[in-house]
């Protein structure tokens, strides 16, 4: 098996191209999702209006299989004349990336300690100042956690893009399945897994750095009684469960 893997790596010349395709597709999708998800999350969390939007996004985001979104994008894209390749996969991944960013931003901004908010208002801050100077910095680690969740999910799903002519590292795996080529299967899988870990660890470090900066962050007490919760994902490597931060989205 290892011999096949080595041989595959020796023989495959377009790895950098495929890697770049994968990174570009994932990167643009997460960026686009942040541009959409962040302001909506901030708005909902700060003003506590339209909260059902955040909850619905979280629930839908989980219920709709990423493979289904990706596959659906294809016939729809053809129907509307956008063609194959980049656009259908980009739109599908963008939609997929929004929920974790939106809900984490919402929860992060919402759950900033009430006393802290009170104190900032007492100091004469306006609503916008409270949002920008108090809520946003305190919510930052959770927001980045949302972006990380999104990014890892998008990198994983972008692998499936190969099935809808979207390119990327999944091309090797799909070829491996179709041709029964173990070398391509293993090589592609290894590259995709490494990219997912790199994303996870890289953004994890950013999150940690931001968390260290805003210490003293307190979140409202966690109540197991809120049984209808849909836990906001914090897929962490070796992280303690943080019920206070991860939980608390009433369904």
């Amino acid at each position: 098996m290892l011999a096949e893997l080595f041989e595959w790596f020796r023989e495959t010349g377009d790895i950098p191209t495929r890697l770049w395709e994968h990174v570009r597709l994932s990167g643009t999708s997460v960026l686009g999702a942040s541009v959409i998800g962040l302001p909506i999350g901030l708005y909902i969390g700060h003003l506590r209006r339209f909260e059902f939007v955040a909850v619905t996004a979280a629930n839908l985001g989980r219920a709709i299989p990423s493979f289904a979104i990706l596959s659906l994008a294809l016939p729809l894209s053809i129907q509307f004349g956008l063609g194959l390749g980049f656009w259908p996969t980009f739109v599908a991944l963008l939609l997929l990336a929004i929920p974790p960013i939106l809900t984490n931003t919402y929860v992060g901004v919402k759950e900033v300690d009430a006393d802290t908010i009170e104190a900032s208002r007492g100091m004469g801050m306006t609503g916008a100042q409270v949002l920008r100077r108090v809520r946003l910095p305190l919510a930052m680690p959770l927001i980045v956690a949302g972006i990380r969740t999104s990014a890892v999910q998008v990198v994983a799903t972008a692998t499936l893009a190969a099935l809808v002519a979207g390119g990327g590292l999944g091309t090797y795996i799909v070829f491996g399945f179709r041709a029964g080529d173990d070398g391509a299967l293993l090589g592609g899988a290894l590259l995709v897994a490494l990219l997912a870990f790199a994303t996870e660890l890289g953004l994890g470090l950013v999150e940690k750095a931001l968390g260290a900066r805003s210490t003293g962050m307190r979140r409202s007490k966690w109540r197991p009684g809120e049984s209808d919760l849909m836990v906001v994902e914090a897929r962490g490597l070796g992280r303690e469960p943080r019920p206070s931060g991860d939980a608390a989205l009433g369904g």
Partner: protein
Amino acid sequence: MNELFRWDWAIDHLDEIALQTREHLYLTLIAVALGFLISFPLGIYAARHRWFYGPLASVTGILYTIPSLALFAFLTPITGLSVLTAEIGLVSYTLLILIRNIVAGLRGVSGDTREAALGMGYSRRQLLWRVELPLAVPVIMAGIRIAMVTTIGLVTVTALVGQGGLGYFILLGLNRSFSTAILLGAVLSVVLAIAADRLLILAERLITPWAQAKARH
């Protein structure tokens, strides 16, 4: 062929739809059940012994981070295009979710409650089964719900390793550029996920009658 959804095709294939939906459910239920059987003792142990949680979360976290298609691709040269390949992948994704919630649920039980139970003469085992676990049910159930919904989504991918389930329709549609089959597979798996989630909420209410009594205050 230009129509987005052809009802006549769906109606002609009702038997096939029923079959694949059943298959989808089997694959999901086996995965979540096995995942829970593995996670339950590990989660209880990790809740009691803090040192164990770190390594456990790391290992399950690594498994969880591996993209599903990559995991299936790793396994296929070893276990072939089989149910085993599908289930190993599916089970390994449930572990992080289930263990995290079991541990969070058990740790969420307040020290005072624990103290009171011990003061009443409960043994460690009685404390676990009569006090801690019942109080942790909502959080553990939340974990099971997430695991179930996530797995239903992942099972659509197992069609690639030769398994049935609703992913069969999605793959069929992709291979033939036939949107009806894609829509059918996608929509039915979402419906399945929502239905499973609702059923689990109902089940939770049935096994925790005290939570309802409290809510009525």
